[in-house]
């Protein structure tokens, strides 16, 4: 068939018809692959209606590989070339997602009018292929039948969860028609939701590619859903196979089974108790009238005492006659159980058995009921005991409660002793109540250690059926009682800690009912509460008592205040005393009444600001009933009393403390003022004007005064000169020069008025009523009114130097103020004195300076450090310094040559130790370094009793030194000259001596020798005089005794050659003899000694010569005595014929002396001559 031809006649009906009836699938798509035409065979081949397919694109019905193949192999050029067909094999997707492989013939059609292309395809419906489809269709039909036959809902769902296929069950369940199901979202249909339910396994399966299951409930039905993903050959998800199974019945069955199992299990368990199964018997009105025993167990038989063989199959009305009339309406009740499914439980006492049992009934099946019996005798007994205890202790508390407990426990357990005790300090048990043989035992206490109670306390419970006393030998009570049985439980507080013990002791072996532990535990729990309550109460009571005691007897005033109203709830005695109210009065007041500065609003603010746990302390002033006030310190905090919050204020009267503080403050103020004043007063720069200002300011400040003045007494005329005066007059009437106010001294030397009174008496005073004061002369016109007055005269050394006067102190004057001003006045007086003496000192200094300037010598003043404080003009000139150089600081040591400075310092130090003022020579140094000799006379300067420095005068001794040196030089020249002279004299004398000596040695005549010896002696004597006289020319006298000794020695030695042993001695006073007298004396002595040697010892071989000297003040007495033969009487000393004696006479005459000769035991020649330079003839 020529398709091109067919298409060109597309409007041809015939062509259409062919196509419509063709078994092949013919289609055309536009460039967007949308179908422009598809033949009706599409329904048979692909399962789509033509309408459906027209909504699709070619892509939708091609597996991706085929589409790719198509896309790649269409040769677009072919279309332009109008070049025939292309054939390829493709795979189509049917509507049911099965696929179909087919050969397609493709051709491109170009519409010349529109310029658009179309693809024309024809899938061959070959006979072979057609057969295949048929088979498939059959299979499909078969599958569809199966599909529909399934009783579960089966759906085929597209990947985007649209229902593709639904089975009959589906439609049945949903009640929907295919058109309302196919193509709709599965969750809309199945779950009636807008989105998939959370359990939906579809999402999971996409990933896992495995089937999944879920259970869900809907509308009271239970379903199990399974989903299996379907993939095509290319592993593409094409659909989900979804089955939903209704498992509601199964569920119900399961639950029913479970329930019945439970029932069965219960039943089984309960079979251990008595069990009986009955069938209810009803009348025509379905009203229960009787029941028949169907089955009972042996326990039932035991419990009821009914024998199985007697009752099985029997009516209860027969077994237990009269039951129908029992007010308990048993039959009626059981009827409800059997017919209505009600359950009925009760407890019953079986009289003949003396047992209690619990009865429970249920209906295992309609019309039947089962009854189970449980032995609860023990429990019942316990309950009864407990009930008894509860009833007996009901309404009792404290001691009574504890007493009841022990009593009841004893009875219940048929014991001999019961104890309830509290554990004290974890070590001991103190009984709260104890009963022994029905009697209360008071206050028993025992150690917990080594008792069964300890076990009970530790473990909560302790039970000993017997021999407890032998097991616990330490517990005395057990021994006393000879106890066998013991049961005890601990009483624990809310934290679980044991606080007490509850125990029962028996002399017999102890049999305890079951639940004893529990019963006792319950009692213990209640006891615990009671014990804690008692303890708390006791603690509370104690604390309340303590509080009360504390409150009443506290040393401080206490106020219990309502924090809302500020009213007093309670006050103690002390508070009443402090405020002067009685208690009732005070309780009617509020805080603001006694603390007027504390308004109600302020009180409220204060209370709000208070920290719950932190009391605050404030100072305030409280007002007494008598309106006087006093300072207080208040400590306020919240306090809970009887679970109400109050304010507790502790109020302390701090009057004394305030006074002490105030006093301390005052002293501090005074001391501060005095310290600052002292500084100002001792400062050398402070002027009088400043001083008085400061003094007045401090005085006014300390005394709180408006007015006052500070004055000095004029030393000249005694007038009181006020330097400062606060304005007291409208206009200043009495103003002196420099705006100073002068209060003149009267002609009688006395001062006037109030101020004058203090000056006249030299005593400070004050008055707070000045008008009444004896010295008051009234207030001058224009003067401010005087309220009070205080004045202190400034006196030093008994001399009045000034005054401090103060007036109108705001709070009056007191002794304390007076004392403070006195101290100030004392300082003030010192300061005035200092200023005045400084003035005098300045004058004296001035005088000193004027004098110093007049002197030509250097005058200086230096302080202790040696710094020059003054030097006169002469000094500046002498040392070459300018005034400014000195002013810039100059140390006196710099005026000494460096070598003298140390000595200078030492000498200055000495000045202060012995105050000597010797002139000391130094080498001074000028500014230019040149040096000159000086003598410094220095004195220490003492100021205020302390070394201050030195004052001195420096004398230039250059000229004196020069003169001295000249003299020195002359002197040494003279010495040299004299030495030379002496040498020559000595040499010449030696020459003579040598000559004479040689002659002596040569001479053969003894006479000549003697004569020469005499000459030798004379030369020696002369030489001796020379040598004795000091050759420096200063010596003008000789020591006569020494001289005579040497003379005698020389003479006697010379004569030693004689055969004569002569000794000599020189004795008597030492006599200083003028040199002028030495020569004649030496010649006399020489002559006399020679004479003695020559003549006195003739005919003897030995002798002694004694030379004596006597100092007779004005005269000298010389005697020479020998012990020889004595001088011949013929020798006339006055008229001697010998040269020697004549010589002696002449020499004595020269000396203005006289000579005596005494011959007795030898010869004594005595010469006496006056001392002195004045000599006869010279």
């Amino acid at each position: 068939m020529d398709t091109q031809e067919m298409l060109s006649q597309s409007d041809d009906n015939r062509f259409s018809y062919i196509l419509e009836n063709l078994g092949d699938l013919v289609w055309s798509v536009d460039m967007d692959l949308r179908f422009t035409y598809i033949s009706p065979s599409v329904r048979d081949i692909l399962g789509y209606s033509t309408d459906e397919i027209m909504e699709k694109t070619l892509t939708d019905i091609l597996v991706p590989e085929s589409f790719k193949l198509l896309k790649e192999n269409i040769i677009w050029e072919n279309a332009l070339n109008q070049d025939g067909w292309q054939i390829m094999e493709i795979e189509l997707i049917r509507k049911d997602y099965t696929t179909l492989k087919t050969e397609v013939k493709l051709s491109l059609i170009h519409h010349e009018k529109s310029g658009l292309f179309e693809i024309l395809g024809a899938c061959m419906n070959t006979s072979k292929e057609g057969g295949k489809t048929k088979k498939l269709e059959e299979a499909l039909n078969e599958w569809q039948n199966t599909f529909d036959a399934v009783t579960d809902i089966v759906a085929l769902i597209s990947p985007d969860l649209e229902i593709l296929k639904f089975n009959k069950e589906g439609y049945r369940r949903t009640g929907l028609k295919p058109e309302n199901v196919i193509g709709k979202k599965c969750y809309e249909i199945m779950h009636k939701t807008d989105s998939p339910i959370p359990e939906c396994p579809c999402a999971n399966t996409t990933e896992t590619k495995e089937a999944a299951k879920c259970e869900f409930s809907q509308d009271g039905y239970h379903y199990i859903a399974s989903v299996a993903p379907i993939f095509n050959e290319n592993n593409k998800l094409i659909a989900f196979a979804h089955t939903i199974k209704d498992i509601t019945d199964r569920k119900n069955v399961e639950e029913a089974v479970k329930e019945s199992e439970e029932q069965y299990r219960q039943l089984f368990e309960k079979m251990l108790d008595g069990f009986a199964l009955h069938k209810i018997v009803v009348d025509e009105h379905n009203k229960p009238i009787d029941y028949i025993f169907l089955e009972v167990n042996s326990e039932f038989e035991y419990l009821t005492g009914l024998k199985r063989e007697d009752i099985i199959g029997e009516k209860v009305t027969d077994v237990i006659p009269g039951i129908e009339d029992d007010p308990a309406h048993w039959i009626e009740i059981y009827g409800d159980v059997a017919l209505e499914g009600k359950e009925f439980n009760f407890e019953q006492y079986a009289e003949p058995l003396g047992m209690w049992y619990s009865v429970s009934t249920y209906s295992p099946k309609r019309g039947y009921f089962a009854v189970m019996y449980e032995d609860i005798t023990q429990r019942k007994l316990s309950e009864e005991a407990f009930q008894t205890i509860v009833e007996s202790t009901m309404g009792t508390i404290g001691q009574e409660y504890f007493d009841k407990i022990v009593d009841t426990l004893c009875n219940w357990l048929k014991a001999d002793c019961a104890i309830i005790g509290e554990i004290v300090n974890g070590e001991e048990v103190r009984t709260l109540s104890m009963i022994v043989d029905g009697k209360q035992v008071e206050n028993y206490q025992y150690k917990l250690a080594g008792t069964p109670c300890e076990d009970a306390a530790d473990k909560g419970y302790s039970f000993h059926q017997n021999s407890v006393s032998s097991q616990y030998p330490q517990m005395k009570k057990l021994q006393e009682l000879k106890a066998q049985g013991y049961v005890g439980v601990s009483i624990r507080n809310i934290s679980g800690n044991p606080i007490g013990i509850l125990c029962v002791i028996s002399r017999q072996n102890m049999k305890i009912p079951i639940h004893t532990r529990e019963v006792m535990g319950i009692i213990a729990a209640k006891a615990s509460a009671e014990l804690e309550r008692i303890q708390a109460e006791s603690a509370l009571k104690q604390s309340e008592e303590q509080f009360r005691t504390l409150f009443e007897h506290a040393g401080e005033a206490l106020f219990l205040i309502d924090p809302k109203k500020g009213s007093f709830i309670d006050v103690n005695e002390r508070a009443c005393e402090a405020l002067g109210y009685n208690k009732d009065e005070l309780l009617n007041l509020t805080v603001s009444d006694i603390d007027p500065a504390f308004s109600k609003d302020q009180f409220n603010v204060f209370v709000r600001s208070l920290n719950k746990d932190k009391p605050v302390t404030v100072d305030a002033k409280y007002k007494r009933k008598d309106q006087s006030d006093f300072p207080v310190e208040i400590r306020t905090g919240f306090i809970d009393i009887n679970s109400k919050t109050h304010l507790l204020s502790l109020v302390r009267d701090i009057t004394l403390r305030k006074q002490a503080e105030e006093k301390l403050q005052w002293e501090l103020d005074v001391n501060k003022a005095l310290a600052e004043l002292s500084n100002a007063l001792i400062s050398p720069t402070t002027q009088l004007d400043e001083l008085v200002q400061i003094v007045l300011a401090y005085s006014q400040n300390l005394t709180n005064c408006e007015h006052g003045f500070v004055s000095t007494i004029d030393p000249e005329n005694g007038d009181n000169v006020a330097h400062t005066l606060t304005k007291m007059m409208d206009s200043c009437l009495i103003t002196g020069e420099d705006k100073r106010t002068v209060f003149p001294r009267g002609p009688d030397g006395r001062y006037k008025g109030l101020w004058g009174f203090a000056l006249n008496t030299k005593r400070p005073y004050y008055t707070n009523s000045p008008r009444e004061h004896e010295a008051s002369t009234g207030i001058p016109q224009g003067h401010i009114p005087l309220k009070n007055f205080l004045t202190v005269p400034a006196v030093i050394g008994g001399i009045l130097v000034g005054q401090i006067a103060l007036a109108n102190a705001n709070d009056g004057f007191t002794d304390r103020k007076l004392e403070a001003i006195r101290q100030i006045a004392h300082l003030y007086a010192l300061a005035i004195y200092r200023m005045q003496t400084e003035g005098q000192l300045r004058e004296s200094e001035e005088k000193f300076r004027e004098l110093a300037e007049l002197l030509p010598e250097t005058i200086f003043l230096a302080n202790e450090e040696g710094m020059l404080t003054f030097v006169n003009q002469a000094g500046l000139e002498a040392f070459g310094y300018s005034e400014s150089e000195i002013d810039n600081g100059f140390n006196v040591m710099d005026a000494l040559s460096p070598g003298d400075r140390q000595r200078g310092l030492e000498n200055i130090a000495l000045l202060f130790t012995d105050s000597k003022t010797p002139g000391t020579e130094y080498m001074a140094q000028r500014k230019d370094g040149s040096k000159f000799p000086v003598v410094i006379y220095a004195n220490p300067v003492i100021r205020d009793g302390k070394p201050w420095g030195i004052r001195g005068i420096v004398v230039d001794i250059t000229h004196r030194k020069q003169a001295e040196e000249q003299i020195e030089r002359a002197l040494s020249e003279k010495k040299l000259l004299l030495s030379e002279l002496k040498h020559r004299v000595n040499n010449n004398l030696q020459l003579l001596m040598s000559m004479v000596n040689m002659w002596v040695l040569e001479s053969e005549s003894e006479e000549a020798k003697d004569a020469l010896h005499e000459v030798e002696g004379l030369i020696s004597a002369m030489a001796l005089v020379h040598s004795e006289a000091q050759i420096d020319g200063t010596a003008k006298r000789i020591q006569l005794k020494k001289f005579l000794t040497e003379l005698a020695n020389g003479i006697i030695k010379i004569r030693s050659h004689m055969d004569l042993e002569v000794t000599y001695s020189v004795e008597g006073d030492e006599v200083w003899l003028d040199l002028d007298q030495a020569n004649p004396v030496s010649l006399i002595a020489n002559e006399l000694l020679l004479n003695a040697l020559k003549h006195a010892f003739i005919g003897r071989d030995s002798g002694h010569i004694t030379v004596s000297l006597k100092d007779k003040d004005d005269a000298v007495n010389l005697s020479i005595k020998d012990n020889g033969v004595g001088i011949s009487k013929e020798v006339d000393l006055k008229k001697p014929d010998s040269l020697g004696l004549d010589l002696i006479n002449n020499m004595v005459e020269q000396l203005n002396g006289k000579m005596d000769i005494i011959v007795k035991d030898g010869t004594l020649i005595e010469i006496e001559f006056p001392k002195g330079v004045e000599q006869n003839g010279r």
Partner: protein
Amino acid sequence: MGDEANKTRVLVVEDEKIISMQITRVLSRAGYDIVGTASDGNEAIIKANELHPDVILMDLVMPRMHGLDAIKSINGTLPQSNIIVVTGLQSKSILTEALKAGAKDGIFKPFKEHELLEVIAKYAAET
């Protein structure tokens, strides 16, 4: 003075001939061996070194060379010789100086015979 004194060799240094003479005579009479005389320091040094006298009587103030210099020199070469200063300079300082220079003793002019003999006798025994 006995025979021992005879052995004592003395050099007399004195510029004044008369004094020198007298000393020589006195000492000779006393048994001393006057080995020589010198009239100035130089000569004294030469003679002393030449004669090695036991005792040298040494004047101080002499022409050309002062006695002190001679003493120093002789003491340097002949420390064993006993130099006795004989001087008219009656000062202790000059004597001290001479002793420092090496002299053993001294005698002031004018001296007496016995004084000379006494001082030299001290050193005669030493030889």
